[in-house]
């Protein structure tokens, strides 16, 4: 493993690999090695030794971190200023990893429940420095909230899984932590009614920042006996008190609501964020599906018919499913996502399935040609994480 301690080290490692045409696996701490397709390379280039926070400007609502900085270290730093990462990136329970790097989270564009109200990781990525597959260091974006100078290459890097270049440093927009968090919870709803209730909540003027549904198996995994439909509000304490009451009133046609206080809410939403409600067995696969919210319930039904269990976040727009890592289950997930005009990711599975099957939807031919040219623009020798997103 090559793990440079400075930026030039990334450029020269990539340069050498490009000259020798030997592909590299790009990673941080390796926590997401189970996502998508495995790479088969001679060497690994890791950001793990390139850590630190060169800039934290609370009044400007920004933080700059080197890619190898752990999520925990970034969060600890922000905690000092009473601030947090807006997209509340998950630390998935099924990763079996103690921590992740901030570079890895951005490269995978991972966002938690707040995505529905405040945007994804990519929405808060303001600037990057990266070593491209040409062994060149480039900057894109910057440290200001609004920037339309030239092509926004930052966005391409968010969600690119290290296939265009190695992000070496990144600047994120951050926000003050809310004073309080409250949750309106309705028990016992069926999936269709739950999504309808969440749609009413998200269509209300009360700034709902989390909207999830846990069917019975998922609810039981986090200590409830029956299904729960939950909507979160984060703000100043007085606002949270007022808005949760008002929201419970608005939702009363769906059933009586409980209101969870700040500590109970924080615990529950951390679990939802980290996919803890998934009833995962050893050897099981995990899929993530992004759809229009009103199709979420139908995906749960289709999953159930294929022997899979899961839950809904993002008002129904994000479906987690888990179950046996079989070709049939995989095909069922793809079919359900396709029927709903949504997209899917294979987040965990034994290597056999990840090598033999697609790990995300194939790209239509017109876009695939552009994709190929874009990859070549950054990594002409094709040495960065080949096969990670799509079969090479």
């Amino acid at each position, binding site marked *: 493993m090559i793990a440079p301690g400075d930026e030039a080290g990334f450029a020269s490692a990539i340069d050498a690999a490009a000259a020798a045409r030997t592909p590299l696996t790009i990673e941080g701490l390796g926590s997401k090695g189970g996502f998508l397709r495995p790479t088969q390379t001679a060497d690994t280039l890791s950001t793990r030794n390139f850590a630190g926070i060169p800039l934290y400007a609370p009044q400007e609502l920004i933080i700059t971190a080197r890619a190898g900085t752990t999520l925990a270290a970034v969060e600890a730093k922000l905690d000092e200023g009473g601030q947090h990462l807006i997209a509340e990136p998950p630390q998935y329970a099924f990763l079996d990893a103690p921590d992740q790097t901030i570079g890895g989270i951005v490269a995978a564009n991972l966002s938690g429940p707040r995505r529905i109200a405040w945007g994804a990781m990519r929405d808060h990525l303001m600037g990057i420095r990266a070593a491209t597959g040409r062994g060149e260091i480039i900057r894109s974006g910057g440290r*200001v909230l*609004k920037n339309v100078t030239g092509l926004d290459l930052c966005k391409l890097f968010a969600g690119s899984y290290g296939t265009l270049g190695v992000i070496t440093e990144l600047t994120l927009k951050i926000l003050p932590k809310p004073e309080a968090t409250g949750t309106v919870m309705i028990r016992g709803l069926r999936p269709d009614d739950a999504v309808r209730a969440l749609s009413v909540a998200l269509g209300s003027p009360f700034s709902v920042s989390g909207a999830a549904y846990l069917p019975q198996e998922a609810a039981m995994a986090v200590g409830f006996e029956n299904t729960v439909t939950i909507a979160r509000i984060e703000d100043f304490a007085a*606002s949270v008190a*007022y808005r949760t009451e008002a929201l419970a009133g608005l939702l009363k046609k769906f059933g009586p609501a409980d209101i969870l206080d700040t500590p109970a809410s924080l615990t529950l939403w951390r679990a939802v964020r980290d996919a803890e409600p998934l009833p995962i067995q050893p050897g099981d696969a995990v899929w993530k599906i*992004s759809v229009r919210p009103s199709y979420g319930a139908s995906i749960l039904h289709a999953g159930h018919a294929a022997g899979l269990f899961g839950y809904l976040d993002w008002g129904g727009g994000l479906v987690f499913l888990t179950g046996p890592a079989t070709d049939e289950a995989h095909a069922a997930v793809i079919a359900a996502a396709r029927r709903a005009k949504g997209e899917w990711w294979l987040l965990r599975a034994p290597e056999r399935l990840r090598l033999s099957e697609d790990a995300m939807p194939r790209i239509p031919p017109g876009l695939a040609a552009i994709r190929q040219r874009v990859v070549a*623009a950054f990594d002409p020798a094709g040495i960065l994480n080949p096969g990670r*997103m799509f079969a090479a």
Partner: protein
Amino acid sequence: MISLPKPKADVLARRDAVHQGLRAIMRDRGVITDPTKLKPYETDGLSAYRQMPLAVVLPETTEDVAAILRFCHENGVRVVPRGAGTSLAGGALPLEDAVVIGMMRMNRIVEVNYRDRYAVVQAGVTNLGITKAVEADGFFYAPDPSSQLACMIGGNIGMNSGGAHCLKYGVTANNVLGIKLVTIEGEILELGGTHLDTAGYDWLGIVIGSEGQLGIATEITVRILRAPEGTRAMLAAFDGNEVAGACVDAIISSGIIPVALEFMDRPAIHACEAFAHAGYPLDAEAMLIIEVEGSVAEQDWLLGRIKEICARFNPISLKVSQSAEESAAIWKGRKGAFGAVGRISPDYLCMDGTIPTSTLPLVLRRIGEMSAQYGLQVANIFHAGDGNLHPLIMFDANDPASMHKAEAFGADILCLCVEVGGCLTGEHGVGVEKRDLMRVQFTEIELEQQRRVKSAFDPEWLLNTAKVFPLQPGTASAGPDALPQAA
């Protein structure tokens, strides 16, 4: 003066054939070739630059756009996409050898879905038109550029437009779920959809803000949001820019993210007050407009806290709006700022750069010094929450020396923005206006990487040529090397 590329002689020689080809595609509708009728298209919001295009085509469907682009691609004809023509950076400035594709006839709201909170609209729908279509049901489309009454969503995609409310709700890129994009080869791509996250690369992210360099957006799926229970604005006036800047920092550090936080300096206050009679304090050096939202009780509480914070900075005056009418008056002054400055100066250049907010006092001081040095007045209007400056440089276009000085002054301000850690443009785009300054912000390696991405979408560089990237003969990259500069 900004130079434009030499037109392709072979294309000019085929003018009639190009016109005929376009008419055949458009079934004789919506093709403009008559010089008198082309006149309105010769410039955009950067009216100092004018150029008659080869033709203007007004497509009505995505398929029209695809057929036109395919034709232009096959015939090596350059294309300039155009929305409402409100670009202040010359983003829609025509070229003599280019076909302008005007999107204004594609102005239909295709679908509104409240349950999933999105709307599908054609590129020629105005920004405000989206909100108008959903506001009766309590919803709105969040990004709100000052030109929102006129500017079109397709242009907003091109420039990744923002506005006063971005601090809370983000810019265009944060509010778009899907784009139907037509490539120069005439291929129709569906990027994103009606869901939040898309597998693979973030194509929406690279297309939004690409200034028509990568394709033409014909249909856009935007997120619509439920409007808050109410909003209310307040004014806080100070006797110095520095103290007003410190007050902005204190508000944000307190955990309050106002829905808007606008900063105006003394010349801007005076110009806007003379125009809108909004009750702005004329004895102030700097003024903040702060807007909050929520229920009436929440507004009271938040404005009360903000008043307490402002009070720590010895304000000259604090005025909390007591009604929707008073709030509207406060915004009328701000939203009318460009028109207001137009009343006190024959012409003005509206600059657009972004700075780290901590450098605000330094930047305003340096702009003041430059104003004295150039002998040109400047009014500063500023999205203080996000560091987006809009200095309005006043000059007289009938005096070439004055215009030349104004442009040099503007360039100095933008270089200053980059020097303090900001960027050349926050929301207007690079267009032709800032094209030659790109080297101030980017290294040649960085520019070359952007050019390669442009080439991946548009290998022959036919789309909005001569915008965004500095013209440079003799490089190895596709595109610009084929663009000899005008003598």
